[in-house]
């Protein structure tokens, strides 16, 4: 039987991470390891995590400093790979998987691969908000032939990119494509990674695998929402996406992104000082081009 390591990255999420871990531990498909990467939390999250360490499957990996979601997922995936996991299952610390979420991902991926007669890059869940609506931020993008598996009676959709909120990667994907770019720190790391790995084959969204993302407000990424309070995330987002569009998709994609950014900032009446800061980040993306690291084969 295949081995699975869940990877949860947490930062100052004392109130929610416990429920995430409870839901993971209660999966109908038992996990071999639950790797919790603590991004140097300061709010007592470490104490919550300590209470789970009695379970031998739980490995708490506390980083010396906050390395963002990108650095945390990279470290956790690397650890899972070193432990010999056949799959890594990634999610945020405010993600609540339904009891059969993993089982549905695993069986959905296997059936999809059988139907497609080819290995696929990953399987991701359907992500809902706490009110049962679809979660705006975690919608995957579909391929041109997204309904191919549905035509065969499977409740799966072929996708290109998705978020790191309940996504299952086979080990071979990490071997071939490496780890997420930890230099991204936060935002667009999941998009870049899933776009990178789907160069070989699409991913699949298993609609029967459901998770709830308890993210406070159900909003997708829109530059019209930029404010002084949320500016730090958008700064990373603009730099990372600009870098990706330019270095991996070409000048045209970069220009298109710049136009979209300008349009959304204009539509949201974002303050000019913030717009200038984001313009600087857009320019920073021209020289910012990190390369992936690869995990080490230990077991």
């Amino acid at each position, binding site marked *: 039987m295949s081995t699975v390591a869940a990877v949860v990255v947490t930062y100052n999420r004392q109130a929610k991470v416990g429920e995430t871990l409870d839901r993971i531990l209660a999966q109908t498909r038992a996990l071999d390891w639950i790797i919790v990467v603590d991004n140097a939390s300061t709010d007592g999250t470490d104490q919550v995590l300590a209470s789970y360490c009695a379970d031998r499957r739980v490995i708490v990996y506390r980083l010396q400093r906050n390395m963002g979601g990108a650095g945390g997922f990279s470290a956790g995936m690397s650890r899972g790979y070193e432990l010999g996991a056949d799959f890594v299952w990634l999610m945020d610390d405010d993600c609540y998987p339904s009891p059969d979420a993993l089982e549905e991902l695993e069986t959905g991926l296997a059936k999809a691969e059988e139907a497609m007669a080819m*290995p696929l890059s990953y399987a991701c869940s359907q992500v809902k908000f706490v009110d049962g609506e679809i979660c705006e931020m975690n919608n995957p993008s579909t391929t041109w032939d997204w309904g191919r598996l549905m035509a065969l009676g499977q409740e799966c959709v072929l996708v290109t990119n998705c978020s790191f909120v309940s996504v299952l990667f086979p*080990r*071979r994907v*990490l*071997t*071939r494509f490496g780890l997420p770019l930890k230099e991204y720190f936060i935002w667009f790391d999941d998009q870049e990674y899933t776009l990178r790995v789907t160069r070989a084959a699409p991913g699949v969204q298993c609609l029967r695998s459901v998770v709830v993302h308890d993210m406070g407000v159900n909003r997708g990424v829109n530059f019209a929402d930029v404010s002084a309070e949320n500016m730090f995330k958008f700064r990373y987002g603009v730099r990372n996406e600009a870098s990706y569009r330019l270095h991996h998709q070409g000048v045209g994609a970069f220009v298109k992104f710049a136009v979209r950014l300008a349009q959304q900032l204009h539509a949201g009446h974002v303050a000019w000082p913030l717009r200038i800061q984001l313009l600087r980040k857009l320019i920073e993306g021209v020289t910012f081009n990190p390369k992936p690291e690869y995990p080490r*084969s*230990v*077991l």
Partner: protein
Amino acid sequence: MDEQSTEHRPLALFELLDESGIGLIDSSAGLLDERERRLVVGAANFHALAAPGQLLRIIVLRGPWGTFPALTDRTVHHIEWAGDREAVGSMVLRSVVQPLNAVARPTSILGLVVDVGGGTKFGTLYRSLPGWQGQVRRTARSLAPIQFDALRQLRTDVVERLLAGRGVKRRASTRLNRSTRPGGTSGPPAVLFGLHWLELGGAERWALDTIQMAADAGATPIVITDRESNNPWITKPELASALVVPLTHPMDPATEAAFLNGLLETFDIRGIHVHHNAWLYQRLPWLRAVRPDIPVIDSLHIREWRTGGFVDTAVRLSSAIDTHHVVSPALRDYMIGRQGLPAEKIKLATLANLTTDNSITMDRQLGIDGPFTVVFVGRFAQQKRPYLFLRLAARLREHAPGKFRFVMHGDGELADEVHLLKARFGLDALQIRGPEIPVAHTLAEADVVVICSDNEGLTLTSFEATAAGVPVVSTDVGSQVSLTADGLLCPRHPYRFLDAATTKVIAMMTSPDQRKSWLDEQVVKATAFAKLPLARPWVRDLYQGWLR
């Protein structure tokens, strides 16, 4: 088939009519030693298989020291030889391999001249580089081995970057599922093995183990080597019941086919196990086309930086191989993740208990009162970079004169260089030990083992050191991360390696707690690694299935 049963009589596919100097009838009356005699028998078997029923006259030459045998290549048909060769034997024999056309039994005598080479020099590709380029490289290499190595590592970096993500192009498969035979096979069951050479090495040690397992399972091991070598291990007891054929190149293509046809008609070959043998790899598509029913496996140990080595050869020829046996997680991941081979075709089975019993000694006392003993164990070969160990020893001695003791345990093609550098660095206290002393004795004295290799699969030395309770400082290459504490892994580049290794060895000498902490981590890794499937039982079961 004349299966001579005495311990000294290897399996022969010929009837000996007369001989002089070789000592096959009376070894005490021969001019050849046992190794040379086995080489001659190997050559005679090859020609007996290639020319069924043929009368053969074989003249045996011995070359000057430093020359390699010529046993099966085109030169054996020349009855004129170089002035530095001495004739040391002559034999007349008749091949007992049955010709397919019994009516056309040849009656004339075929004259052959084989050369057993001179002495047990170690085989090396490096020394055989031809022309002025080879001479320049050899000169640069001997004058400044570490600087030369630094350039080599830079080249490795470039090639590795260029080849990153490259998929190896695979050969088309053989679609035949039934063999076409001129006659039924009624020979003894056999397993065909392909080896690099019969010299000291981890892959060769494993190959001999598998040969013994095949013999134990009731098969005749047929062992083919293809690399230029004096084959010092040809006298090993594991080969006692084997048909050993050390090939030398270039061979006549017609003779190659005749040889393989002879094997297929003489033996009931139940399986093929390729260890490291380029010639046999390249002939697998032909063998699969002739006998698609014969299962084929290979054992893979190490991926070469620049060429991919046997690993990439195996990927290229994967359509002619049923199962790839890999000895390390790194190779498993490379084959499945990087090259896209089906997971069910890759078998990870480790050599964790090949030279140890997996027990670990943890109650060793450190040499705190005496000097701190730093040890190198391995072949004196380019891959192992013994010159880096010597430079490291020189650095450590400069740092703390009299506090360290050094032992180098091994032998090989760079033995001369090791002695030269020892003198050049003034390392009078460094002790060099040959293979006549058991490695266990050296490890029992060691406080730390240093592995300087340019490339590795997973060193048997790491297993042995862990079993002896000795921490290992190693370059971070191949799968060494599986058995080495993270803090004791060093960069591959020579200068960075020397800096890191010096720091780590000094840290262990000055802090027994630090040394114990690293050793504990090494033991945890070794314990986890030991839970992976082992190669011996897997291969044993596989062979038994083949021979059922």
